[in-house]
Every structure is written in C-alpha cells, then in structure tokens.
C-alpha cells in the first residue's frame, strides 16, 4: 500500500473543475506521473502526481479539504 502525500499546504480537489469527473476511482489503474488531484495555493493550482504505479484504493482527503504539507491524499495498492 502506498500513500500519495501532499507536497504543499492548501485546498485539495479531487476533480479538475466542479462537475467534472474525479481524477481516479477505486479500482482504476494508476501509472507513475498520473494526476491524482489538485491543490490550490498562492493563486495557483498544483497537480498532485502519483510517484508510483498501482491500483487506486481511494481518496484519504475530501474534495475541498484544507490540507497541510505531507498529509496523505490517496492510497494506491502496488
């Protein structure tokens, strides 16, 4: 089991825009570099990318949640 950690503090989003589908659903295959979510901070959106490949287990932070750096955002099964 691998966790995707937030590189920065900010607000976490699981979709590219309101109404858009979530980036990943449980069971989806994830390749290294795939976008898992977005973090908004300092007037910019930062893409959170998977650093390993695997199967998506689920998000660990809610859409719109305030998160700090190093906080787990999602879980992958290798």
């Amino acid at each position, binding site marked *: 089991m691998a966790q995707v950690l937030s590189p920065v503090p900010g607000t976490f989003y699981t979709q590219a825009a309101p109404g858009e589908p979530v980036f990943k659903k449980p069971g989806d295959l994830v390749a290294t570099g795939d976008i898992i979510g977005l973090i908004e901070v300092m*007037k910019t959106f930062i893409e959170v990318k998977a650093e390993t490949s695997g199967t998506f287990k689920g998000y660990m932070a809610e859409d719109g949640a305030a998160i700090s*750096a190093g906080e787990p955002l999602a879980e992958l099964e290798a």
Partner: protein
Amino acid sequence: MSLKVINPGLSTSIQDLGRPGYFHLGIPMGGAMDRFALRVANMLVGNPEGAAGLEAVFMGPTLTFEKDVLVAVTGADLPPKVDGVVQDGWTAFEVKAGQTLSFDFLKSGARAYIAISGGIDTPPALGSRSTYPIGALGGFEGRNIQAGDVIPLGETDMIEPELSVPAKLRRLPGKPAELRVLPGLYWHRLTPAAQEGFFADDWAVALEADRMGYRFKGGKPLEFVAREQPFGAGADPSNIVDGCYSYGSIQVPGGLEPIVLHRDAVSGGGYFTLGAIISADMDLIGQLQPHTPVKFRKVDMAEALAARATRKKMLAEVRAHLG
C-alpha cells in the same frame, strides 16, 4: 562557481534584504519576507547578513553544486537532505561538489531560507539581488528560478561547518498566530463595534497569500461610519481618495477580508488602511501557511517600539552566539 537547479520547487526566488528607497516610485522594497531567518542563515555559513540566498515557499528545490559549499536552512521547518540524508535546520552543513541538495516535506512554517557560502552572485538591480517578478527586476533574469538555471555563486573561503542556532533563538509563529496591530490613519472610518470586532474575531490565512500581500478571512464584515464619500473616492465605503500604503498596512476591500501588504506590495491606492502590523511581527507573516488561525492584537506606539527593540536584542543574541 555556480549551482544548478534540478527542480525549482513551487516558488523559489533569490532574495536578500531588499532595495529600500524606491517605494515612492512604485518599486517595492522586496527582499526576504522573514528577514531574521535570512540573516541567520547567512551568519551560519559565514556570509554577510545581507547576502542573497534562496527563499523557498512550502516546497524545497533540488540543487547541485559545482564546488564544495556550506549550506544552512532556516525559517520554515523544511528538512534539507544531502544525497538523501536529512540534515538539521538552523545548522551549517557541507554539500560537496556533485552531491544533491533536496528537501523533505514541510513540517511547519511557510518559507525556508537557503544560504550558500559565498552567497548568490547574480547582478544586483537598483542595489539588490532580490527578485521582484511582477517588475521583472533582480534575481535570476527577473523571475523565480527554473529547472536548468545555472546560478552564479560568490567566491569565498569556506568556514568550518560547526555553527548552529539553539531553539530559543529561532522564531516561528504560534497557533493561533498573534499579529500586533497599530491602528492608523483611517481607523476612525470604522464604527466602534467594527473596531472591537476586528480584534475579537478569529481569522485564518486565506489561499491568496504571497509576497505582495497576505489575505485573512473568517471575521465579521467591517462596518463603516456613514459619510458622504469625498470626490474621487468612489462609492464603496472602504474606498478613499488615493493615498500611500506602507509596508505592513492592512487594507480591507469592501470591509470583508483584510490584506496585509508585504515586501512586494504596491505603494499606493484607493483602499482605506485600518492600521499596520508592527514591524516586529512582519517576519512571522512570511511563515504563515494557508488556513493558519490568526488573532490580531491592538498595541500602541510604545509597545510597537518595545517589540522592535526585543527583535533587535534577539538578533544581537544570535550574533553573539555565533561569534
């Protein structure tokens, strides 16, 4: 002698203590948002306190060096790593030619200051190497650093990597962070209830927080004393006939979300400013992450000056400690 940027981090810029003297022309002072941290980082590696270093926001860069250097990282708790081995913050360590300096996740604070022996030696602009990206001034080609940049370093004789600053001489904001405010020119524009509410309310750092200004949210909207707006002030009660802004001044557009102007702020405009954060607390703002709870506390000029003297004393203690 140079360093190479492998990964720039989120928003990493070259900063020294800034370029005071041009604010009346609209060019901000610039410089490190946490000036104390930059000074200490420089002292730890044997540089003059005002040498240029790197200011890394939330996320550290990945760097390599052409020659052996001494490095110190102060300010935010953003653990530095040399070839993957974690090093202490607020402590000088050596990075040998070809080794990689990278960073772990941010643990607390917001901005880490990276001083390198010899200092960064980009060409000064108006007397400073500080980066002012909006004006494309200073720093490396007037912008934040990017992957592939090769940044010149000053030549120096390296001191021994033995200096460290004890925890009691480091400074990071508490939770909630307390920011002291001296009411200012337009304080009278607020009703007594709004004046009281501003200090009683719980605020938090908003996502719109950068080198130009820090925005706060969560408090009640401010009520203004009714008046007929003067010619040129516009209809909104938070508007004034254009005036000067100072470093640290607090404007509240629409009476809704206070914005504290910081090192890269504009120098004037049409919003009323209710007062200013005292100079002794400006470094702390640079270390606030979004969502951090904040309380504003009212002080008078005597307390503001006493706080400034306390800051100077702490810097003198660090100088004495590091000899």
